[in-house]
């Protein structure tokens, strides 16, 4: 039984603010195996980004109250001192963010930025670092990399900037690549290129990948496992097939029924989830989804459901019985699809 690359146990990230304690992440447990692509799906405020910013050490005890464990290759990152965390970040874990224009410094040439990332971790000469930067730009499919390396971010198109970000994230051959909404700001044909690139590079660099997104289509096409998050908690987890063909949580059902699908006949009316996502300061008691859940019953209002396995791998955090879940999925959700 191989060891997980990343093992997150009961992670809680709470931000004290003037308005109250924002429980951005509130008890999240999951693991990522080597060579796996995990999709983390959720809407704004689900806690998906904060979870991984914490894993990366970009959110620390200075900003938030962090509880739980983030065990990466056997070491708990939460407890790691800053300088040691810096060795992990970039070298072992690379991250790609949503808007490449805000993550690339506009005043420095792209090549210098990538070389800087390399030089921060490797004791090599500047020229060698630059050669590696050129090599990385080529590997991410940027034509004429030796010219491009001397250009500024504004001279790159959106898709190319994202490729440059991916080059930077992979330049030190990390074991884990975290992509936070990597294609949301891009045109759909460019999105397809970038996601295809990530799939290919994953093989080449032998890395595990996390794709954080709100797009259910993206995770269906590119992820082995999927975790669905809501109000700071993981509400469902399973293989991609489990989530699409055998979903076991009312929020997942709600998401599946509410998205416009290019393969669906036009006469199908979308079924939105009623209500609004909850405040993370005043999270509803019991199951955070209960105010919006069409199947709510008494227990849901008082008792927080635990993320429990349904069949070993597939887990859902919902008080409904397995029979009820399967029946509802078959009769109401599948019909819609």
């Amino acid at each position: 039984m191989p060891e997980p690359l990343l093992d997150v146990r009961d992670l809680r990230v709470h931000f004290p603010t003037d308005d109250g304690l924002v429980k951005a992440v509130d008890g999240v447990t999951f693991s990522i195996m080597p060579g796996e692509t995990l999709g983390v799906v959720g809407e704004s405020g689900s806690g998906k980004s904060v979870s991984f910013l914490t894993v990366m050490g970009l959110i620390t005890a200075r900003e938030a109250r962090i509880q739980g464990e983030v065990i990466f290759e056997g070491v708990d990152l939460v407890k790691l001192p800053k300088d040691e965390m810096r060795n992990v970040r970039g070298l072992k874990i690379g991250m790609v963010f949503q808007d490449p224009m805000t993550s690339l410094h506009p005043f420095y040439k792209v090549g210098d930025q990538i070389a800087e990332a390399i030089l921060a971790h490797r004791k090599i000469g500047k020229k060698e670092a630059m050669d590696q930067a050129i090599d990385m730009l080529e590997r991410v499919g940027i034509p004429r990399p030796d010219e491009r390396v001397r250009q500024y971010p504004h001279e790159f198109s959106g898709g190319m900037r994202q490729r440059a970000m991916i080059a930077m994230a992979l330049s030190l051959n990390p074991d884990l690549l975290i992509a936070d909404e990597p294609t949301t700001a891009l045109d759909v044909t460019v999105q397809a290129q970038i996601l295809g690139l990530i799939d290919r590079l994953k093989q080449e660099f032998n890395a595990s990948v996390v794709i954080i997104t709100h797009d259910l289509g993206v995770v269906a096409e590119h992820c082995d496992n999927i975790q669905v998050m809501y109000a700071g908690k993981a509400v469902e987890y399973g293989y991609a097939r489990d989530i699409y063909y055998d979903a076991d949580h009312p929020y997942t059902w709600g998401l599946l029924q509410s998205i416009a699908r290019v393969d669906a006949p036009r006469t199908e009316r979308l079924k939105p989830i009623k209500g609004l996502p909850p405040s993370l300061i005043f999270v509803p008691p019991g199951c955070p989804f209960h105010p919006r859940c069409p199947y709510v019953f008494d227990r849901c209002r008082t008792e927080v459901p635990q993320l429990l396995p349904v069949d070993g791998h597939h887990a859902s955090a919902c008080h409904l019985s397995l029979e009820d879940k399967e029946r509802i999925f078959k009769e109401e959700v599948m019909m819609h699809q």
Partner: protein
Amino acid sequence: MVKLVGVKKYFPISRGIIFQKHVGDVHAVDGVDLEVFPGETLGLVGETGCGKSTLARVTMRLFDSTAGSIFFEGRDITKLRGKDLRLIRRDMQMIFQDPYASLNPRKTVGSIIGAPYRLHKTIPKSKIKSEVQQLMELVGLNPEHYNRYPHEFSGGQRQRIGVARALALRPKLIVCDEPVSALDVSIQAQILNLLEDLQEEFNLTYLFIAHDLSVVKHVSDRVAVMYLGKIVEMASGDTLYMNPKHPYSGALLSAVPIADPDLAAQKNRIILEGDVPSPIDPPSGCRFHPRCPQSRAMSLAQGLGDQPHPRCTEEDPELTPQHPGQVAACHFPLPDRAVIAVDAG
């Protein structure tokens, strides 16, 4: 209801600090013929720089066209000005993409939705508040929030405010420019359903613009695909899904992620090289030729080398009929079922 004939919109580019010299144009819209029929939803889909937003604004007369004519209900409105234009504005309204930028943050919601009434003086001042509150209820907002400011509402609610404002004068045509792109998935569905209900209740015609083909296909009777300022294909959503004819439509369709792992695995992927070129200097002949896999394939098949086919570099194709109700501008249209090889469902 709306007819566009040969519409072009160029934005001039100038160089020079003291003496401005006209050095070129952005060919945002470069020759578009389009008809929108009463009661229908026409979807306009395309990526950055294709000109869809510009086309919408030209139709609404928010921009003057550089060339071509715009007809509304049979009347030529291309050169309308002043009072005449303002009268037309009662019949065509717009809903914008960014619910955070399209509402004046310093005005109350009641004031924002009531503004059309005050501007056009269609009802007496004393009646405005009750009308506005009725509209608020119609779009799913609490009428008691009349005096609140935009920042007190969520993105989805702000978009509802935009919809209420657009409806105030009971227009005939509403141009929706990316109305749900900035919203969370579960809220998108609420707004799309709202738009559908309102269309039925008020007999509205929609020009619906989005980059998300899934959303466009869901709401539209017909879909027009734009690329670099021109319409390259037009068909019903179902036809476009089953049998896209223009290689760009095929690429767009194959790029749309499908929330169904098995179906997604069966898609034929048409991956385009590079990024969308700039509309400042569009390619010769068919604008799509530099990125077109079909053009290269035809050239290879005819022994002309691994490059775009000469016909594509020289001749700009016209929109020609394909399946019933479908037109595409391509010299070598895709075969049937080029992207989705199996039947859905």
